[in-house]
């Protein structure tokens, strides 16, 4: 596999919820145009970690962060505008969360708040985003129907389309398939495969098979610490740490 330039460089990251330390001394590098999977048992800090990358943790009171998170070499906690950051780094959540608007309005929401008003431009963006999220065929005839009328899998792909409409650079996915049925899950996985060509993807997953299927690199979190980080194949078939091996083989988690 050829070397890709680094997208994120995280150094000595500590995160506290009040007195409770959720991330300890996390240091890792995320490469561009790869799928990076974050795995680990519940409460290990993988969701907390992914939320530091687009500063979603800012929404929670009493959060304290130390260390550096560099996105393309810029410290996102010091030298980056949070709105600009989130525009560049989109996020798909665990539970599909389309807004209570029409399908069209859901997709057009992002571009609109970033100042795009031209109707034809918006129309194009909506169509392209839906196509990129493999949803266009299913919804092109009911764009102005409520988004909440879609099935769970369709809603999640709509959420992905919504992120793509803002034309991000990185897409963060926080357990995007945990609320979906197997068929919807496999469609999302296929989609991730497609998206990898254009975007850098970081995905948190509970599902080890999924991590194995979709990711190029994998980080194994345990109690807020990155135990092991490397190529997915190596993590899955030849882990260095005994804890990683124990987790992969299903002995805990």
């Amino acid at each position, binding site marked *: 596999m050829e070397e890709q330039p680094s997208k994120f460089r995280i150094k000595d990251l500590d995160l506290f919820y009040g007195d409770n330390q959720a991330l300890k001394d996390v240091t890792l590098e995320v490469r561009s145009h790869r799928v990076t999977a974050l795995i680990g048992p519940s409460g290990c800090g993988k969701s907390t970690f992914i939320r530091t990358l687009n500063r979603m943790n800012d*929404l929670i009171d009493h959060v304290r962060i130390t260390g550096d998170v560099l996105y393309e070499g810029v410290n996102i906690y010091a030298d980056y505008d949070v*709105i600009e*950051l*989130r525009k560049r780094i989109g*996020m798909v959540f665990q539970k599909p969360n389309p*807004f209570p*608007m029409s399908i069209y309005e859901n997709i057009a929401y992002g571009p609109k708040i970033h100042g795009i008003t031209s109707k034809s431009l918006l129309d194009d963006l909506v169509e392209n985003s839906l196509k990129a999220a493999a949803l266009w065929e299913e919804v092109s005839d009911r764009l102005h129907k*409520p988004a*909440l009328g879609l099935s769970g899998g369709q809603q999640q792909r709509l959420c992905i389309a919504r992120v793509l409409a803002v034309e991000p650079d990185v897409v963060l996915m926080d357990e995007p398939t945990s609320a979906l049925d197997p068929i919807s899950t496999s469609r999302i996985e296929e989609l991730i495969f497609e998206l990898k060509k254009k975007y850098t993807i970081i995905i948190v997953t509970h599902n080890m098979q999924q991590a194995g299927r979709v990711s190029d690199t994998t980080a194994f979190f345990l109690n807020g610490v990155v135990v092991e980080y490397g190529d997915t194949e190596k993590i899955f078939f030849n882990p260095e740490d005994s804890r990683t091996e124990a987790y992969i083989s299903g002995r805990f988690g």
Partner: protein
Amino acid sequence: MDVSNHTILSRKKEKAAKALLWTAVLLTLAILLGIILYIMVRGFVSRQEKSYFVSPFLEETLKSEETGEYAMKIIVHRQVKISDLTMEDLRTIYTKSRAENWGHYSMQDKRITALAPSRNTPLGKAAETLIAGPEGGFGSYVAYLEDDEEMIRRIAEDPAGIGIIEADTPVTNRKVKVVPVRRIVVAVHPSVKEIIDNRQLSVITEKELKLVLSGDITDWKDLGGHDRPIRLIRPPEAWGLDELVSPSDIPAADSPEDFFRMITDLPDSLGLCFYDDAAAGGLSILEVSRREVKGNLTLSFLLEPPARSGKWGGISTIILNTLFLILFTLLFAAPAGVLAAIYLVEYAKQGPLVSLLRRGTETLAGVPSIIFGLFGNIFFVNTLGLGIGFISSTLTVTMMILPTIIRTSEEALKAVPLSYREGSLALGASKLQTTFKVVLPAAVPGILTGLILALGRVVGETAVLLYTLGSNYELVRGPSSSARVLSLHLYFLFSEAISFDRAFATGAILVFIILLVNYSTTRLIGRAGRMSG
């Protein structure tokens, strides 16, 4: 299959509980429907038992011995809402020196235009003798016309017109109607009206009178008098009233004088005669009551402005005042309340200050409105010197409903899932954009419900308005003009005993407004909620 005792017991308990629930449900329904139906029925129909000096017998053609062959009839414009007039009313209308108002007779606030045939014609002379009575002539405001054609034409043009024409003249103009007059009275021997056992017979019903005249009631006892037979007297033929008295084996009067003598001399006697004759003969009169069923809540009641403290006219200005009050209160209170709620939920740091604010609004929402009235009167009316009027009351009512709006909007905003906010923020939206483009629209149904609750309080509010809005029943003209809204109008109609019928009609309108508002909100909420699945 064996059924255990425990199962049987459970079944029985289940049945008993169901029966209890159903009783409660039916009782509630019965009470609800009962109250609403009662208000609606009393609001729409006025039913009154009214007693009159004259009996309910109607005469379209009027004549008397003095007027000889000149018979006449009374005509009015069709818009005058009367079905008949008593002789007393007619006399008052024509003999007053200043213009009389239809309000006294039809509750319509308009000056009567009284027209009479010229005094130079025989009909004119006859009319003045008959209608003005023995005591005097027509009032100075009565206008005189030369012939019947002109009379009909003038009345057709004047919605407050009343006139007198010859009995034979046909009325073909559709804007003019003939009004029958009631001038037949029930004359009795004074002994009939004596007090016996603390009771006095002074009024009989229309039905009773008919039974007496047909010979079906023959004893005074059946009418509530003493236990003696009724001695019916046949009026003299000259009056033309004998058709109304059926029994043939009764003493008949040959002449009016004979009739007067018989009524005054024969104990327990009863006979029919004319109003003026009874007065001239000094006879005792038995009043007759009749049931009058009329439309109460009519279109004209809604469209006419009130007059004489609401006794006459309708409630048009009051409905408009109510709408203005609602509109302006919501105009002040809705943005302020919703913005305050947005601050409390979305922006404020949840600390002791916010919880204090929250507790404060909760307390204020439950404070009796009279206290707001007191506050409004002291602060807006006096301290700020705004005076009793529209602006003071609008501000006071705004203060009163603000806590409710804040509380309900807060709940509505809190009910919006956090995931919507996260979704929006993760797309790079600012907090302001997230709040106004995602959170607020999603909270609209809940906020609307709160506004409607508040609106209901405004519509039903009386105590606050009593101190801050005053009691002027005209249309609001400006910020400082005193006014009256529906609930206040109802209060005055009731507390000043102006008219219970009108109070009920106003109440029915209030109930209607609430129903309408609730219905339209349900529709509105339905429309707003459609996008959320």
